[in-house]
């Protein structure tokens, strides 16, 4: 046979390594590794390593240049006591992951209990080796970064660079971390090979892999939990010493129990839905309400914690929320309407599709620049002159930091308008209009694709049964479109957190940063205020929010979306 399919080494058996068939496979392996090398190296340098590096930066005071390590202070400055909660949740999450992986390995364990205990040893040591590798990189990183400072002003030669590199690899603290790492790796590999020889189990690697991940997650989670705890304690002591109120323990307990109560309420609510007995249904509903109300009361501590954080960040988060609420429903509604009109396949509908898609394709900076002029505060600008034609007072548009509801109230003559009901600033509303203008075309294309996937028979059957157009849409087309709606909602909501280009172009100083959504706040913190450490910490808060949204979305997806 000319071509034998190579098999991945699913059995870790050292004797098999010298099998000639395996030796032939090495060539194949090498080809594979060489072919993925350029991409993997680039993605590692610019996609994976930066996450660790950003974490490293975020634990420092880092204004343009690296300064002292300040632990979680950047996070505490950004989101107050929630910072501890965030890392606490990360630690717990890693422990849960460790448990899941452990259970996965446990199912394949050998019958002999001693063997299954012993199988853990390589995993533990290798997890320790990985953590000591991380420690070594963290020790090495500042020395490597310093090379750039040492080399400026001097003539750059390869020899000098190699010498400096050598120096940083041989710095005392790096050497210490390295010797620990090498010992751990050696011991790990040794126990792995010994284990493979002594304990002959089927699927050795499929047990060792999850065990290693499990122990690694457990170790990392434990370290994070311990670190968060010690940071909290040190903050607590400084607060006691300076006579401040170290209220965050009670706050955190309040928030956590509030979340747990909400979760229980949600579960009861779910069970109530399936309940056919009316009385049991009402009792469960009431129970759910009690838990939800209790949860909300416990979450009442939230504003206190929020007040401890950075007002810029909360204003940014609020702007993002407004932006999401003000764009996603409108954009989806308009595009669904247009998609249904276009789907009738009237003459020229492909021409209209091209036109509606055009704003989405247009380079963002250019179209945002045009919008900046159309919604300018000049009296002669298109929108303002249109308003004047209608006899309405011209507005400041992108220059207006006041909330739209506040403006509306003032024009209606209401004097005492509450500050919390101001709504998004008029400038932000213009950005929302831009966003709707841009994304309607995209959403329409997705909806058209969704409509194309619906079989016509169902709708026709309903029409035969006497349903009118609205009923067909409401009870057949719209439910069958739920995958598209769901996809678009997720994409758009996550998109609002990432939105940057058009807001950056349309943000003006006159609007007093009311237009800055989360990403813009982070970028201006980094680019304008040069607070690298703080901006990195904020970026991780953004990451956490996106992760939570993604997690919620996978939870909802199972129950609410109908895949016909």
């Amino acid at each position: 046979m000319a071509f034998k399919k190579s098999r991945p080494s699913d059995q870790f058996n050292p004797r098999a390594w010298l099998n000639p068939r395996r030796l032939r496979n090495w060539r194949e392996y090498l080809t594979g590794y060489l072919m993925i090398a350029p991409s993997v190296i680039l993605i590692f340098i610019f996609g994976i390593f930066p996450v660790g590096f950003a974490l490293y930066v975020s634990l420092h005071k880092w204004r343009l240049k690296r300064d002292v390590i300040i632990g979680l202070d950047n996070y505490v400055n950004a989101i107050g006591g929630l910072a501890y909660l965030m890392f606490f949740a990360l630690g717990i999450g890693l422990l849960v992951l460790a448990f899941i992986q452990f259970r996965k390995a446990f199912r394949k364990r050998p019958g002999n209990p001693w063997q299954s205990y012993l199988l853990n040893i390589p995993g533990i040591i290798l997890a320790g080796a990985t953590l000591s590798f991380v420690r070594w990189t963290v020790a090495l990183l500042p020395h490597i970064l310093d090379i750039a400072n040492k080399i400026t002003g001097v003539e750059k030669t390869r020899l000098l660079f190699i010498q400096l590199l050598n120096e940083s690899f041989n710095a005392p603290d790096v050497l210490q971390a390295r010797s620990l790492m090498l010992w751990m790796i050696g011991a790990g590999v040794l126990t792995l090979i010994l284990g493979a020889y002594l304990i002959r189990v089927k699927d050795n690697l499929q047990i060792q892999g999850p065990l290693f991940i499990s122990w690694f997650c457990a170790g990392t989670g434990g370290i994070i939990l311990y670190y968060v705890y010690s940071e909290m304690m040190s903050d607590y002591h400084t607060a006691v010493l300076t006579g401040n109120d170290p209220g965050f323990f009670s706050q955190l307990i309040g928030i956590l129990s509030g979340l747990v109560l909400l979760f229980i309420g949600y579960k009861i609510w779910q069970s109530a839905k399936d309940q056919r007995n009316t009385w049991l249904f009402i009792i469960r509903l009431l129970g759910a309400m009690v838990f939800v109300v209790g949860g909300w009361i416990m979450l009442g501590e939230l504003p206190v914690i929020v007040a401890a954080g950075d007002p810029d960040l909360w204003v940014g988060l609020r702007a993002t929320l407004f932006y999401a609420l003000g764009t996603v429903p409108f954009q989806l509604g308009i595009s669904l309407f247009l998609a249904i009109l276009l789907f009738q396949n009237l003459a020229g509908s492909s021409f209209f599709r091209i036109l509606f898609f055009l704003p989405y394709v247009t380079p963002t900076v250019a179209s945002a620049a045009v919008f900046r002029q159309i919604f300018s505060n000049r009296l002669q600008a298109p929108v303002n002159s249109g308003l004047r034609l209608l006899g309405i007072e011209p507005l400041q548009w992108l220059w207006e930091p006041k909330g739209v509801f506040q403006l509306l109230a003032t024009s209606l003559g209401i004097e005492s308008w509450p500050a919390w009901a101001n709504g998004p600033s008029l400038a932000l509303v213009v950005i929302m209009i831009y966003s709707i203008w841009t994304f309607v075309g995209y959403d329409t294309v997705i909806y058209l694709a969704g409509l194309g996937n619906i079989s016509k028979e169902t709708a026709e059957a309903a029409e035969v049964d006497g349903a009118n157009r609205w009923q067909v849409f409401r009870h057949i087309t719209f439910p069958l479109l739920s995958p598209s709606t769901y996809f678009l909602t997720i994409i758009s909501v996550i998109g609002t957190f990432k939105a940057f280009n058009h807001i950056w172009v349309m943000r003006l100083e006159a609007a007093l940063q009311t237009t800055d959504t989360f990403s813009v706040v982070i970028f201006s913190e980094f680019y304008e205020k040069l607070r690298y450490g703080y901006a990195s910490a904020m970026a991780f808060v953004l990451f956490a929010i996106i992760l939570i949204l993604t997690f919620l979305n996978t939870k909802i997806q199972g129950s609410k979306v109908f895949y016909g």
Partner: protein
Amino acid sequence: MAEESARSQHGKRHSDFTLRNISTYLILVIGALIAMFPFFWMISVSLMTIGEAQGIRLLPSEVHFENYINAWKEAKFSLYMWNSVRITLLTLVGELAFSTLAAYAFARIKFPGRDIIFGILLSTMMIPAMVTIIPNFLTVTWLGRIGPLKWINNWPALTIPFMGSVFSIFMLKQFFAQIPDELYDAAQIDGAGHLRFLWSVALPLTKAPVMVILILSFIGTWNALAWPMLVTNTPEWRPIAVGLYSFIDEAGQMLNLMMAGAFIAVLPVLVLYFFTQKQFTESIARSGLKG
């Protein structure tokens, strides 16, 4: 009943000018007018004199094409345009070459750790750009300071970080995996190795996804603002998006020049869109590009 529905089906197909269709057209036309107004205004103002541009006119009294020449000269648009073209070409070539190799290996070569590595690569797609932009800026500055190659204000910082693309690898991998094994077996009997097979059999079959990647990367590179703004503080390698962004402030009251500049920046993308309209729409619909 059946007869009636058959008649209504029949009627639907042939009557294009019922009252309902007219109202449909009306709505579509209004929508198209709203969608097109910014383009109309941009082009119209770009042909006016400064005085007219600042007034309330919707159409120029006289067409002034020289605005384009002035904007082109004043804002160094020729340089920016050339920069964008160079950056896009370099990124595309690098991205396509590296992604094809990697996608082929992930799809058709079996090596230990393949699925784990691919899974790790895929998981990086969740990371928001704001997390990586700060450390990447530090990395790029560091690379520029230690080595002989200049990174900031030069092509490496603008292109190399984008040459490794998880999205492209993913798309091409899906496609390579569909090529039947028999084809490879036959090629191997004829003495072709992996690279030979990739170049002369697999790649010619992959035109559609390659087109998608080309279009998406083109839009991505043409649109990018935050990163190029960070790594170019001189016009030397500044792409058109950043050039236009700085020109918006410089042009100030000269609306006509600003709009001419905006139209210059938009034009290449629009031309590409109209020529490859179908693939363009499909490829964008398939990804969730543009934040």
